[in-house]
């Protein structure tokens, strides 16, 4: 669906609740995400029956069972491909993909990047908890190096994916990050995802309180959030810190953290975020150091990049229509007959 509207909802959040018992662990970040999605969906001005939630495998992928819409809980890594086929043939539907870091970055990595480049008008919600939850605690492709898990008792030797940079590299047209612990920001990002025409990719930092508790707490908890999280908004300077006293200044292509009140710096020196600037979004996507690291950048949240590019399904349909306009609608008898025939009498 193309636009988000704010007219009277066609249905209520309550009508999105199914009769199925929600079976995530108590305290799981998924609850908050479900709540925010159920809040935002009715606001979009789209009838409930037009929504389809498609998931792969993993804790996050139970999501469709809890949404009273159409849904499919598919197989590991393939929700992106299934959603592509659905959207390619049904442009009237609002298609949402719910996936996790294992599902989309590991087993489904291939489909993920191809979805980005094709730019079908679907929404991807990546619940990133940096761990395999459903299989009970192995490291994931987004787990940090050295991570000790059930399958890495001596620490993970894998270099992790940076999902935002991956999506940038795959020419995604809407790339954003949010977190389970900030409902206001998450709802805003969900609305923006829905409003974007094309593939919207929203990475959501989600706490797995059983197997990876607190992995994002530096960004989500009050004590450190202001210092470690950088909330970006198009047209606004990149500021963070307890009193927004810190900012990012670009020295050529090199970002530098400065205090706007010190050393003659002013807010006018600060990089102003522009979601249409691919090069700068690329730099921003690389703010990915561990908060433990000396001299690290803050972790950005918000829309990194957005671009208007034709959607695969529209071009696909246009091509069909152009051929029909040029050749006329297909005639089955002509097709069966072919070009060269002969008669036996």
């Amino acid at each position: 669906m193309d636009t988000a509207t704010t007219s009277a909802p066609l249905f209520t959040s309550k009508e999105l609740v199914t009769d199925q018992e929600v079976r995530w662990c108590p305290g799981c970040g998924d609850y908050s995400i479900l709540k925010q999605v159920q809040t935002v969906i009715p606001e979009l001005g789209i009838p409930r029956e037009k929504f389809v939630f498609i998931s792969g495998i993993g804790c996050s992928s139970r999501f469709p069972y809890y949404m009273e819409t159409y849904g499919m809980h598919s197989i590991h890594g393939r929700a992106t491909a299934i959603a592509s086929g659905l959207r390619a043939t049904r442009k009237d539907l609002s298609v949402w993909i719910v996936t996790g870091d294992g599902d989309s970055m590991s087993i489904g990595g291939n489909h993920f990047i191809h979805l980005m480049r094709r730019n079908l008008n679907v929404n991807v919600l990546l619940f990133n908890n940096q761990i395999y939850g459903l299989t009970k605690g192995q490291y994931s492709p987004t787990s940090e190096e050295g991570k000790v898990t059930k399958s890495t008792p001596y620490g993970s030797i894998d270099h992790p994916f940076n999902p935002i940079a991956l999506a940038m590299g795959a020419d995604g047209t809407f790339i954003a990050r949010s977190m389970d612990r900030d409902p206001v920001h998450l709802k805003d990002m969900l609305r923006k995802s829905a409003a974007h025409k094309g593939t919207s990719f929203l990475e959501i930092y989600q706490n797995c309180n059983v197997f990876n508790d607190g992995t994002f707490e530096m960004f989500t908890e009050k004590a450190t959030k202001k210092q470690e999280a950088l909330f970006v908004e198009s047209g606004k300077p990149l500021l963070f810190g307890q009193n927004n006293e810190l900012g990012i200044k670009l020295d050529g292509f090199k970002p530098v953290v400065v205090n706007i009140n010190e050393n003659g710096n002013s807010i006018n020196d600060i990089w102003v975020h522009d979601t249409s600037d691919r090069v700068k979004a690329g730099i921003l996507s690389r703010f990915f150091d561990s908060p433990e690291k000396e001299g690290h950048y803050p972790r950005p949240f918000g829309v990194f990049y957005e671009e208007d590019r034709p959607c695969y399904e529209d071009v696909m349909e246009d091509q069909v229509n152009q051929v029909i306009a040029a050749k006329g609608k297909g005639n089955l008898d002509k097709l069966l007959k072919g070009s060269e025939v002969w008669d036996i009498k």
Partner: protein
Amino acid sequence: MEKQNEVLEQVIIKFAGDSGDGMQLTGTQFTNTAALFGNDLSTFPDFPAEIRAPQGTLAGVSGYQLHFGSVNIYTPGDKCDVLVAMNAAALKANLKNLKEGGIIIANSDGFDPKNLRLANYPDGKSPLEDDTLGKFNVITMDVTKMTRAALVDSGLGTKEIDRAKNMFVLGFLYWMYNRSLDITIKFLEDKFGKKPAILDANLKVLRAGYNYGDTTETFRTRYQVQPAKMATGSYRNIMGNQATAIGLVAASHQAGIPLFVGTYPITPASDILHELSKHKSFGVKTFQAEDEIAGICTAIGASFGGSLAVTTSSGPGIALKGEAMGLAIMLEIPLVVINVQRGGPSTGLPTKTEQSDLLQALYGRNGEAPMPVIAAYSPGNCFYTAFEACRIALEHMTPVMMLSDGYIANGAEPWQYPTSADLKKIDVKFATEKNGEHFLPYKRDEKLSRPWALPGTKGLEHRIGGLEKQHETGNISYDSDNHQFMVRMRESKVEKIADYIPQQTLDSGPEKGKLLVVGWGSTYGAIKTACKMARSEGYDVAHAQITYLKPFPKNLGEMLFNYDKVLIPEMNTGQLLKVLRDKYFVPAIGLNKIMGIPFSAGEIKDKIVELCK
């Protein structure tokens, strides 16, 4: 000098040359000309997996066998009457399949020392110049030289000129078999209309080849092959993959829903995609996915949305699609999976044919995952089989596997094409209303199939997925009794299709007797011909070709026991044999060939004679 005309009933020509020599095109052109003349025919293209294997080597030989006649033809034939050898390697690779006394048309330029060395002729001795070919009738011509001579004033470069060599051979053969050049002239005009210089060159060389036969004193005999006495009606020439593709378009038309094909290129299935991508005027959507898995998964998505969804592949790709087929079985949605089989295992023999994916089709998924399987038996039959696969998928809400193979996929035959009025409607019903207090996505009808409720239908919102379903509600269920019930239900549903398919019939032969030959898939023509040959020698043999491999037609078991012996020729180590023995306890005998090439009728006939004695 007066030229003689000899009338022949049937002729088998093998066109063989380097992969770059244009033998496939030459063969196809002769085929089309023969078809339009009214001959019955069957073809067998045989080419290397490499696009351009090292020039002049045995590995690089590309062949095209054509069997045409004034009698009914069911196979590309066993041994050839004529071998066109564009170089030494082509001769060497095909000589063993030439009949004694057969004609060799050899391009002498392809027998220079370099070509002889590449073809592993010892000491560079040309077989054209010693007596090794004494048993054959050798016609040597320097095609390269004569092509160049014909185009000396064309202004084209040597490379471009040499590319027209195949037209010389084609022209010569048209002369030899009294054929008109018209079909090929029209083809060349369509193909090179925008490149007049190339068009002109090809036409010139084609005519030069024809005139060479006409004017050169060496050739005194021309051959006549009269039109065949086939069933009256209108015919066209068709290749298997092409027939499969238009069968899908026809099914979409007869079902009244759009066709979506999610697929990934793979030999020998890609031509189905190529053909379908031309038919956008029928609203066909083709999606060339990033891999085999995405091919089937996009199709599953399209099926969920109400399209006739298809994925096409060959064995290795089918292996990759296994998990998704299991999902489609759990979802109980319509889906057509087409496997154009090739030699396996692994990458195997991509351009060669085999029937070794039957067990994969029947059993190749995790869990108890039953899926109907049907097989095409000839190029033209691919149309009906594809259509039937779609019908079963849509009317029974199930994924269906269609088996074809490289032999019939690339082979061609005259096809008495149907009109749209001859085709049945396919009954598609979308659910529009609740079937209980809440919508029950897994409530079954008399066919045991569930309702197809499309996203966008108000009030029928529901979730489906790969986890075990509770009967009727479709909710996740880990209940042990329910699981057993559902496993049996999915099997029963597939078995129930037997009520909606035709009974097994005999293709030929007595209803009871000594021997029944049972085949499936592309062995049809060879078995049919073998049985005919054996009966003409007085042997009591019948032939049945099975289209429906799961479920089997209800009368199949009974039919098998009407004969003293059952013979099952297969291009595998005995897969149908295993299945029939398992299901019916029939002591059937296998005849198995796993050489990447089809059976010859003679091989099967010999076995029939052995078993009848």
